[in-house]
């Protein structure tokens, strides 16, 4: 039996990522790839989608090339490989090639257990990626995430974050990343409360600001984030509507009005008038009409319990940001 590779030996010839937690599996792969690239920036990475590995493919990929470059080969869903391919993989791990790092991503169940056993017997480095079903596990995960980000967060803060975000590890990890980037100092319960309670409205208006300036991709991204943190969809339609409405009103307000009078007429603070004026470029009257109509439709879909309120909002955001550029090509 081969000597077992140490857990911290990221460049071991064979890594097994075992489990069903997508985030952890992805991270196990990413760590290996990063280590290989750190060792050799020209590393050739072959990430094989489930089913992409056919008999003979592996031999082809692992044959030493003329340039002897370092290679990382990732086999996804290894538990689903066909019998012929499994034979290939087993043969390979018995005699691995130099300069090649093979990562097998495996669900860890009874399916494909033969390959799992063979890999373990061959001394594979193993990374456990189990689903985190228990609240305690998720709490430990969040703590670990803050630690990795180099931030200290109180136990209460971690719990509060779990309460706000839910149990999806990807969202939790994203939230920790966001908090680490956006805040300074120790993270306590108050920070979480401030960040997530004030967030509901803030993100709606962020989505609107991006949409009315025609930044479609960013607006959509912001929208997904807002929904992920539990912002009510009606708050988003409200913010979109007020964004477009302000533009429509300012665009048609009396020209030559003094700024203070204008602000009073529109019911906005003067700084906002300036900001809306910036946003106004590219808009047309028809654009305002199209956009508000689309937002009204989204509001109806959201309130009528549409099957997919997120899609209704996405469509509205796309319509708004297209309308924001309706005047640019003329």
């Amino acid at each position, binding site marked *: 039996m081969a000597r077992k590779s140490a857990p911290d030996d990221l460049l071991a010839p064979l890594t097994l990522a075992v489990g069903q937690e997508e985030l952890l599996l992805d991270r196990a792969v990413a760590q290996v790839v990063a280590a290989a690239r750190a060792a050799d920036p020209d590393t050739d990475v072959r990430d094989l989608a489930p089913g992409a590995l056919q008999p003979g493919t592996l031999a082809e990929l692992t044959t030493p090339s003329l340039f002897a470059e370092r290679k990382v080969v990732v086999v996804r869903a290894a538990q689903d490989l066909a019998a012929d391919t499994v034979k290939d993989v087993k043969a390979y791990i018995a005699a691995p090639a130099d300069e090649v790092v093979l990562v097998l991503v495996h669900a860890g169940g009874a399916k494909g257990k033969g390959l799992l056993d063979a890999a373990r017997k061959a001394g594979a480095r193993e990374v456990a990626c189990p689903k985190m079903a228990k609240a305690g596990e998720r709490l430990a995960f969040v703590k670990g995430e803050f630690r990795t980000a180099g931030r200290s967060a109180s136990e209460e803060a971690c719990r509060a974050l779990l309460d706000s975000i839910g149990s999806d590890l990807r969202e939790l990890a994203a939230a920790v990343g966001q908090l680490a980037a956006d805040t300074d100092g120790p993270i306590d319960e108050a920070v979480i409360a401030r960040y997530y309670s004030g967030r509901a409205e803030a993100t709606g208006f962020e989505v609107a600001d991006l949409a009315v300036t025609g930044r479609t991709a960013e607006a959509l991204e912001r929208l997904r984030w807002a929904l992920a943190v539990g912002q009510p969809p009606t708050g988003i*339609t409200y913010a979109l*509507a007020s964004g477009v409405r302000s533009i429509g009103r300012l665009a*048609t307000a009396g020209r030559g009005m003094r700024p203070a009078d204008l602000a009073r007429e529109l019911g906005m603070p003067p700084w906002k008038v300036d900001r809306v004026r910036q946003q106004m470029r590219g808009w047309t009257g028809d654009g305002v*009409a199209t956009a*508000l*109509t689309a937002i*009204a439709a989204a*509001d*109806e879909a959201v*309130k009528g319990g549409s099957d997919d309120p997120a899609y209704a909002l996405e469509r509205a955001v796309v319509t708004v940001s297209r309308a924001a550029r309706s005047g640019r090509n003329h």
Partner: protein
Amino acid sequence: MSVWDDLVGQERAVEQLTTAAVAARAVVAAGRGAPTGPGSGSAMTHAWLFTGPPGAGQATAARAFAAALQCTSPDLDLGGTPGCGFCDGCHTVLAGSHADVKTVRNDGLSIPVRDMRELVLRASSYPTGGRWSAILLDDAHRLTEQAANALLKGVEEPSPRTVWLLCAPSVQDVLPTIRSRCRLLVLRTPPTAAVADMLVRRDGVDPALADLAARASQGDLDRARRLAVDEQVRSRRADVLRIPLEVADVGGCLTAAQRLVDTAKQDAEQLAGTRDAKETDDLKAAYGASEGLGGRAPRGMAGAIKELEKRQKSRATRTRRETLGVALGELLGFYRDVLALQLGSTGELANEDQRPALQRVAAAGPPESTLRRMEAVLACRTALDRNVDPLLAVEAMTLALRAG
């Protein structure tokens, strides 16, 4: 004068109800109970459903019928028809003080199931005056499901001398189980001339104004009266009918929408201001038995007040929606007139007083645009029913009124 005087243009309904009242008298004379079920073959039955277009006078008809059932005129023995309007029976019913006629008024709040059960229980008692025990239920379509089930029990197992008088906008608004046990009385849209005549006769309105109000209200008596006697209601209408001329540009559309929604909100607040405080005071007074005991609120009062506040809030939302609904109805009427002009129809216009504006809009586009605008108004109504933010829904509409 008779109890039917306030029903305008409903000759057929009056005839049917009079026949029923005559039959009811025969039932009383014979010492029997009311024939049950809509198909009993008798002109009298124990449950009635009054329907008709808004403002046609369903509750008025039901009350008049209740009065006719209690009529004690000496002329009846000489072959007169019930519902004289003078006798003590007729008079007390119309005044709302007859012991055997219970009216559940429409105050915009849905009837709690508790009250409905009590009502059903009360309905089963024998009339003190020896004639009929009548329960008049306005807005029978606004019952909660539980309350409707309690009502169903009442109309399913009627007491011999009880008569239920239910009012609703249309048959479809009432649970099938309930309506199948009722005889249906459908009021029609009263003709303009009859409405104008009523305004002149009853309210002493100037004939020209009466004519304008009768046309503009499109058969809604309450609305006609308010238009005729209330200057503010007329100026609201003028504001709404200005919209088709204001929607030339986006700014005009947004301003018009804002004004419409603000006005609706004001109306709801005004109404709430006068009603909510009084209801809360009444409720506190009802719990007042233990008042003065160390200033502690009586048991259960806090919960009851909270419940009342919840219902008041939903009523405010509905008032706002209804005010907007009236405005949408007027806009629809305006474009209907525009369409009539575009198609060269010679029938009467609802907004005769706005003819120049109608002609201007009619000349500015084809009938197809008018139809599209009418659709936008209807879509706005649907959106409001589905709880879309009112300002947003109205903006989408005014913007659609603008284009092309």
